[in-house]
Structures are given as C-alpha cells and as structure tokens.
C-alpha cells in the first residue's frame, strides 16, 4: 500500500452534502500542491437521510487506486447521531483523528488511541446566517483547525467558489466561525 496517500473518510446522511464538502477540500488540497486527489462517493445506494460515506484520498503525486478507503487517517462526521448507527472509526489508523459535528462538549467523547475534534457546526452555521441543518461548509472549518492539512483561507476560497449563487459569504463565514470554535483533544 502506498504510504504517501492521506485517506479521509466523510460520514454524513444522504442529502447532507458530504460529497460537496469532500469536493471543496479536494479542490483546496489540489491548489495547495496535492496533485493527486481522488474523491469517491458510496456507489449506487444513496438515499436521503440514510448514512452515506465518501472517500477522499490526497497525495503529492497522482493516485491510481480508486477503491474505497478501508484504513482512514481521519474521519469527518457531519452528524453526531450517526455514531449510534455507524461504526465511524472502523479501520481508523492508530492515533487517527475523528472530526465531529456535535452540540455536546469534547469531554463527552472518548475514542481510545485516537484524537478527537468537536464543534457545534449546526449552531455556528445558523449564527452565520444559514438555514438550520446546512453543515457541509461549516464542518470544513473544523477539518482545517484539527488537521492543518490545508490553509483555512484556501478552503474558504474553495467554499466561495463552490457555493456561487448559493450564499457564498454565509457559507464562508460558517467555516471561519467553526474554525475559531473547534475543541481538540485526545
């Protein structure tokens, strides 16, 4: 297996925008010098509200293997209620990272041997002026803060580009608010 590839698995619900979030990060990573970027949604069975996941692989060089991620370096969870339905840490590498949208505090979560980052993305998105439930722009702020992989300014630019005509400033503001309000521990 190639060790140069960073594997990021996104967990959300059908219709929640996990694919869009992963695509924004893919774009920002690409312009930051990650020439290998592959994003693969769950194939064929998406239904609104049902748990879905998306695989995002990034590397400095071209990626040839398109198969889904089984041993992620990090998992991004757009909805904390998924924890009751899906084993989001399945295959997560040792000392891996869980980024979680949750109204509960960091102390409420314990994933042995893993790092955790928590932010109430749903709350900050509303504070930024988005309708309740739009979390796919905000969660990117938590990703940026917890991983440092891609600069928040580059990510915000990618958000504004993706949401052209769909409240780009408010989506960008959500990401920045979450970036400033993400608790990291573990």
């Amino acid at each position, binding site marked *: 297996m*190639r060790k140069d590839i960073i594997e990021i698995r996104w967990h959300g619900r059908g219709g929640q925008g996990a694919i869009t979030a992963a695509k924004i990060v*893919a774009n920002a990573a690409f312009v930051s010098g990650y*020439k290998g970027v*592959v*994003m693969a949604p769950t*194939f*064929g069975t998406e239904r609104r509200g049902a748990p879905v996941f998306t695989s995002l692989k990034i590397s400095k060089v071209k*990626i*040839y293997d*398109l198969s889904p991620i089984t041993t992620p370096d990090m998992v991004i969870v757009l909805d904390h209620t998924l924890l009751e339905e899906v084993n989001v840490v399945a295959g997560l590498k040792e000392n891996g990272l869980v980024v979680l949208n949750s109204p509960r505090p960091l102390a409420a979560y314990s994933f042995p041997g893993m790092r955790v980052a928590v932010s109430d993305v749903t709350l900050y998105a509303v504070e930024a002026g988005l309708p309740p439930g739009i979390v796919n722009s905000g969660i990117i702020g938590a990703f940026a803060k917890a991983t440092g992989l891609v600069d928040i300014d580059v990510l915000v630019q990618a958000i504004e580009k993706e949401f052209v005509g769909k409240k780009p400033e408010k989506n960008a503001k959500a990401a920045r608010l979450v970036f400033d309000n993400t608790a990291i521990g573990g």
Partner: protein
Amino acid sequence: MHIIESGNVAAATGVKLSRAQVIAAYPITPQTPLTEKLSEFVESGELAAEYIPVESEHSAMAVCIAASSAGARAFTATSANGLLYMVEQLHWAVGARLPVVMCVANRGIGAPWTVWNDQQDTISQRDVGWIQLYCNDHQQIIDSVIKAFKLAQTVSIPVMVCYDGYLLSHTYMPFEQPEQGKVDAFLPAFAPKHFLDPENPGNFNTVTLPDVRLDVDGNMAPGYIEIRHNLQEDLRAALLTYENIDREFEKEFGRGGNPFIEEYKCADAEFVAVCIGSLSYQLRDVVDMMREDQVKIGVMGVQIYRPFPDEAIIRALAGKRCVIVFEKALSYGNQGALYADIKSALYSSERKPRIHNYILGLGGREIKTQHLVDALAKSCASPDTFGDSPRWIGLKLQE
C-alpha cells in the same frame, strides 16, 4: 485550466468542447449525470445543440442516425441494458457509416439486476463494427471524446468511448480542460460528402442486392458483401488514422502518445499484467509493490479494443515469459474475450509467452489490491502450469 469533477462531467465537457449539434439520450445509471450535465449546457446556452429527450435507447440511437444522416454532429450515451436495447440501431449506424459518438459508462448486465461496474456491456458489442476506445482516468475521458469525434468523421465509422461505471463515472479527480479555440482548430466542423439534402434528393441504405449492379447514374455500385468488406478494410486502416490523430492531439495539447496500449514498467518485465480500463491503473500500485520484491513485472492497458491493435500488442508481449490477462467480462462458454484475442494475435509469433486469464470484479465486486497481488504472485511463481480456462478472483462460493 484544471477542474475537479466526476468522469461523467469530464465526458460532458468533452462533448461541449466538441460542439455536438444533436444530443439524444435516455438516462440510465451510471450514465445519468452525463446526460443531465449536457441538458444543462444546452439549457444555459453554453452548448448550441438540439437536446432531444427520447423514450428509449433504441430511439436515442435512431435520432443520432437521423441527425448524422442530415450532416449534424450527433452524440448519445448509455450503459449496460440501455446499450443492448439499441443494438439493432448500433449495427445500422455503422452499416450506414455515420460518425456518431457514444459514451458508455460500463456497467454489468442484468439479469440478475445490477447497477455496478463491469465491462460485459461493451465487450459483448465488439463484433458490431464500432470503434471502441477505453479510458483509465478523467483526462483520458475528456481527451478521448474530442479525439473520437475527429476519428469518427475522418473514417466515417461510429466510435464508443467507454469508461468504468462508478469507478470513473462517479469518482472526482482533477483534469485539464482543453481550450475551446484549440479544440476548434483540432476538430473541424462535420461536413459530409453525402447527407440528406432536400435540394439534392437521394436514397440512402436501400435494399442492396447480393450482387453488384449499375446505380442510377450508370456506375457500377457495390453489393452488400463489398460494402461489408470495405467496412472491415476501413476499420483496420482506422488504426493508423487514430495514431495520427493522437499524434496531432499530443502536439496541440501535450497529452497522448499511447493510442493503442499504455505500458507501465514493461520494458524490462518478464511478466506483464494486461487489462482494459481503470483496473490497469490500480495494477500500477501492485506492480510497484511487487517490484520492491524484485519481481520483474509491468502492466499494460489496452486503450482501443476494436479495431484490435494486434501489431502493438505483439510488439509489447512477444518474448515475455508470461502475460496475465485480467477481465471484467467473459465470452460465456469460452474464455475472456481479450484473453482469446491476445492469444490469437500471438499465435504467429515465434516468441510466444505463456498466457493466463483471470475473471474478476463482475457486477461491481470490489477488486482488492491484495487479491491482485496474490493472483499475480501465483502466476509469476508457476507460469507453466495454469491451463487455458479462466480462473476467478474473489469468488465466495458456498461449499
């Protein structure tokens, strides 16, 4: 400019840049986002084309045939059972020598029902007479669509541009969008010598007698068998035409150079894995892993399956110790179709390699890298004792 989008959007963008004039399609998973994107392009005015929604794939191809007969650049796309539903019209399009271009997002065929990837749909259409190009990533999809339009109108033969459903159609990766001005210079407008013209009436594709006969102008006209012979000759000659088109494309856009086969670490290899489509890229990682263990192995992707690039394949494979052919399709009751074709091409070679055949990934069964490593390790360890029947990878049979 690079963008990160799905393989279906790469295909749609290629169609837009090629300035298709008539698009007729019926949605089917996993092709659907391609036709949705094209209808968006037409609706927004970015693409000046007639988008004709139809009630079936058979009608989609019928519309393309009519449009192409009238001198318009025509495009459609489909997958799996949709492709099979238009088969009668596929034969008609090629018999009438119409340069229709069609994308196929490869998908397994029902029954039993499946929406996931394999290549049985297009491989089973290899004898129709269409040219078949296959892509390994999104850059190849957008570039191949543009090259396909040029090839089709140069040789008057329709072209399928095939790419793996889901694996490529729904996966996002970066690719470069060629500039419109450069595409326009590369791909001139479609200007057929004969087309349906109210000012100049004529009969197309009427009943053709078994023997030659004088036409209305008193010239000797070919019979059915001559017309079919000419199609075969023209298809074989299309290999050289495609090589030239690819070279011209490379000069203009800086990409290409492998119109027939794409080799990776094959120069000094004793063992060569061969397959069609995105799997050949996944195998590159496997080759790298096995090279670390000093196995002299490479991988070769077949980029054009019809016309069959036999000379390139002989050049690449004659003298190797063993060739291992992986296929997501089967000529049922015999062997993998690609395996049989490669064996046939090498029959006349004095330096025949051993050839092994593996069937895998049917109906979207995940192809695990470890399965590929295990299969290749087995073939490399005992190249002489495999037999002529295909072996299956990843089967979970009940004992």
